[in-house]
């Protein structure tokens, strides 16, 4: 009986590891090909590199204009993440801790806001922004990303605040602390992990977002990393090695953050999204 069980578990190990390996093939090919030569790739898509061509990265970095792209992405991503963090933190604080009038309305509003697709707003927003000169503008993108990331992150922070003990706030109020002081000295230290999750979610969403950025950022100078890569592939279709190197450059920061903070990542991205 025990033997059978062990056999069964080793069979499922083998199946699962096999699937994991197959699952990783596309990324493995991408990484391997990023250091192979164009000719070698054209001859055979999947192979180990015979000689390492690190210079592919230099070529891709320069041709793709990745310095500008990284700067653009960092500015937009960090700004949007900070704004989302502040406003959702305050909103959840107001609703949970201060018992704001109309809290039911606000909660319903943000829940409903979660389900408005990007499609429903993009055309009107584009021509609206066109009038006020926010096309090809990092500020325009920061505003859009802040707005569309508010509902999900509000729900996330809200759920966390709901679970916090109320006694702390009352103690602070008896001591005569103002609401901002209470927020800063009491709530913030406890909520640090959840706040870093919010920063992470927004930053990664911005890094990977395509629909809005591709529509609103047409000027090469302000385009983000994903968009640079999108254009790069079109312009360098004859040089697959540079495409793979550019892909690695485009995805590496996110993969590294994922490896370092995978629990934050997985919990943050899956919690509340499709759960019943």
């Amino acid at each position, binding site marked *: 009986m025990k033997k059978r069980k062990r056999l069964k578990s080793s069979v499922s190990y083998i*199946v699962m590891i096999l699937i994991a390996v197959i699952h990783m093939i596309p990324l493995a090919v991408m990484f391997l090909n990023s250091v192979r030569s164009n000719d070698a790739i054209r001859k055979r898509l999947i192979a180990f590199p015979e000689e390492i061509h690190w210079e592919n990265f230099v070529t891709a970095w320069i041709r793709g204009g990745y310095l500008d792209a990284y700067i653009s992405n960092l500015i937009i991503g960090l700004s949007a993440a900070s704004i989302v963090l502040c406003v959702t933190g305050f909103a959840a604080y107001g609703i949970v801790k201060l018992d704001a009038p109309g809290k039911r309305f606000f909660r319903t509003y943000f829940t409903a806001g979660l389900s408005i697709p990007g499609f429903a707003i993009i055309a009107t927003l584009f021509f609206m922004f066109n009038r006020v000169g926010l096309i090809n503008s990092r500020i325009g993108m920061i505003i859009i990303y*802040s707005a569309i990331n508010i509902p999900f992150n509000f729900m996330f922070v809200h759920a966390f605040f709901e679970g916090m003990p109320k006694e702390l706030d009352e103690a602070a109020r008896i001591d005569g602390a103002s609401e901002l002081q209470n927020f800063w000295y009491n709530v913030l230290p406890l909520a640090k992990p959840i706040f870093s999750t919010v920063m992470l979610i927004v930053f990664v969403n911005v890094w990977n977002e395509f629909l809005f950025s591709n529509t609103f950022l047409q000027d090469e100078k302000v385009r983000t990393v994903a968009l640079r890569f999108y254009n790069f592939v079109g312009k360098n279709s004859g040089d697959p090695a540079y495409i793979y190197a550019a892909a690695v450059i485009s*995805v590496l920061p996110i993969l590294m953050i994922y490896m370092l903070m995978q629990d934050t990542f997985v919990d943050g991205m899956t919690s509340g999204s*499709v759960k019943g």
Partner: protein
Amino acid sequence: MKRMKKMKGTLFVLPAFFIHVVIVLVPAAGMVFYSFTNWNGLKEPEFVGLQNYIAMLSDSSFFHAMKNNLVWMAMFLVIPLAVGLVLAVMLLNIGRGQMLLRTVYFLPYVVGAAIAGKVFATFYSPYSGIASIFQSLGIESLSNFAPLGNGRLALYAVAFVDNWHWWGFVLVLMFSALHQVDRSLLEAATMEGAGPVRKFFSVTIPQIKPTILSYFTFIIIASFTTFDYVWIMTQGGPANATELASTWIYRKSFISYEVGYASALCTTVCMGCLAVYLVLAAVQKIRGRDGE
């Protein structure tokens, strides 16, 4: 005094509310408004009543696109759920390596659509992609393998990439739902002599039904608003073979500048999604009440 304090609470909520209203709610309402006009994005819009909606009824490209959305939906209702759920059950029953495997399965989800889409498009390229493998193996019939250029295969080739990117996410969802399944029921079923397949369908599935139902709701709606992979890999081509409602609306808005008409299409799709959502939520509510 107490009232003052409470008003302060509302003050805390207003920044988030204000940003969202201006950037999301106002344009969304604008879309519904412009759907009754002939706006091209620049000139002053003129009111045309229901004309856009009537024109939509004879827009065969739009209906063709909706058919592709249905195919897309069917694929995503079944494939990621089946793969994700089966692997989540397997993952739950092993001890060591559980977290490592979860990390690997989830990993493609953090790769952006533009990167995954374009890397796979390079794999699909007839010059340096999978075709070269068939060539070197001497399989002549597949040496021109270029699924994105083939109207019959393109939609599936694109959906394959989105599936690759997505099922690990579904696995994690199902994995955390399975954690809440009552183990004693499973043990009781084992004592009664039920096999793993039987246990899966009669014990596990009924217990995570709410999660599965929300997954279905999510997919039905998401399938009608999906855009990234198709636009990145084929832009709806070749010859409209992969056109989706979203890519068609996008084309109408930003390439032919028929913003009024595009708004009518988009309003229709959004209302459809809303209706589906309301019906499914009502069904879930009624069933939940019966269950108690």
